[in-house]
């Protein structure tokens, strides 16, 4: 496998007494789309939220094992949490722009991390919007409220919002579940474009989406990573019977 972007070793995660992730070992290659699939409650979203430590916000979460991003264990004592989240951007299930203008949404991260001077904002906003193919639609509406946009545009904006931080990894938590099928296809096309620069990890309920849009697919069940491989292999000749049962719709 080529360059590795995320690696976990013996990762366990507990919500209080409940173990949500059990001994996860995986490697996620750089500049590829990796999909995580599995039935509800299998831990795929939890796993995704390990990579930018968003689970820290929940009371009573404990993690053991290692997660290595950029050569460093992100759970090591003294690890730079805010720096990690700068490097690992996240797009959520529902489009959730701030109730600010398009422009303000995009410069939010810049302002927080003091990454650029104010004079440079304009160019950065344009670049971010171009990356998600929104520039032509929105260039005259930069100072309008982001909440006036269509859902698809909002979700694109949410992707654009993380780009000025120059992340290496984009985490997407069912990014299309609030969108219609056409918008879903558009976001998937966008992922194909973005993966040239970014490592993308996507959690999805939609197996067609995993099959269409990802290079590699991991199947989780009851907190365990059952199988992870090239998407083609997972969908045509899965090694595990359980994977085959799931993707053929026999349960889940």
């Amino acid at each position, binding site marked *: 496998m080529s360059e590795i972007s995320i690696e976990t070793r013996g990762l366990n995660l507990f919500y209080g007494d409940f173990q949500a992730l059990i001994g996860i070992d995986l490697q996620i290659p750089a500049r590829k789309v990796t999909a995580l699939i599995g039935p509800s409650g299998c831990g795929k979203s939890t796993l995704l939220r390990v990579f930018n430590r968003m689970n820290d916000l929940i009371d009573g979460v404990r993690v053991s094992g290692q997660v290595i991003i950029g050569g460093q264990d992100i759970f090591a004592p003294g690890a730079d949490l805010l720096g990690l989240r700068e490097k690992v951007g996240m797009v959520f299930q529902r489009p959730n722009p701030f109730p600010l203008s398009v422009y303000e949404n995009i410069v939010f*991260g810049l302002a927080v991390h003091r990454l650029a001077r104010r004079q440079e904002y304009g160019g950065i906003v344009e670049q971010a919007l171009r990356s998600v193919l929104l520039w032509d639609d929105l260039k005259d509406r930069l100072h309008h409220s982001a909440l006036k946009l269509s859902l698809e545009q909002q979700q694109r904006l949410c992707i654009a919002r993380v780009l000025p931080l120059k992340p290496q990894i984009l985490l997407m938590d069912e990014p299309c579940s609030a969108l219609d099928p056409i918008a879903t296809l558009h976001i998937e096309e966008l992922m194909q474009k973005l993966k040239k620069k970014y490592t993308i990890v996507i959690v999805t309920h939609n197996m067609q989406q995993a099959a269409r849009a990802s290079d590699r697919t991991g199947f989780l069940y009851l907190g365990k990573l059952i199988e992870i491989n090239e998407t083609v292999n997972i969908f045509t000749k899965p090694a595990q019977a359980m994977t085959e049962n799931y993707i053929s719709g026999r349960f889940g």
Partner: protein
Amino acid sequence: MKPRLAQKIAFAFLLLATLLVVLPVLVILLIIVAKGASAISWDFLFSMPRDGMTAGGIFPAILGTLYLVIGAIIFAVPLGVMAAVYLVEYSSDNWLSRLVKLSIVNLAGVPSVVYGLFGLGIFVTFFRFGASILSGSLTLGIMILPVIITSSREALESVPRHFRTVSLSLGASRWQTIRHSVLPHALPGILTGMILGLGRAAGETAPILFTVAAFYLPRLPQSVFDQTMALPYHLYVISTQVPGIAENVRYGTALVLLSLVLLLNLAAILIRSRFRRKKKW
């Protein structure tokens, strides 16, 4: 009874109850305006009292009430908002946060005269601020703290959770998240609390009775360590303590107090609606 009839009767009663709420407000306003309007003049508003307060104006009392209200707000709003931020954003459910919440509820239930005594004991005597604008403002400030904390808490809690999640996911620190993604959106609600506190601070007599209010002062206060006259106390004085004051002067003073509170409220409401229009979700 036929459902339709029952519905009509219920509706009539509900309407009646609503009207009964409005009625006293209207009557109070009408009486005060009718009896007091004739006293209002430039001279009444902006000159010193003369001839044992039977003539001249009420300017020192107006100014004094403004000072006290502003002082109370300066003290109570930052403190109250910070306490609310701590309670909503930082504290988990532990003994400390439970203690603080319990104290706030109790603080809200304390009668205002007890605040007056407390202010006398703590600020006037113990801290040796004397009977002064400082003591009075602090006492009023403590009195309105619960209102400010409670409304600020509600405002903070009504900011959608995902604003925080998104902000944190972009690598903002906890404080940056509060500062940029939570507080601005909670501002209208916080201002509402401020308005409520403001009205209360302007109108209360008991807390300022022992801590600042003067019966009569020949000159305006020069610093925060001076005593001052104040509208509610002045109203009490001219209504009960000084004989021979014209009725329209007494009602005129009440009208000024009422208008002052309404004016302050109006200003705050205007500011709030401007923020609301900018922040919509």
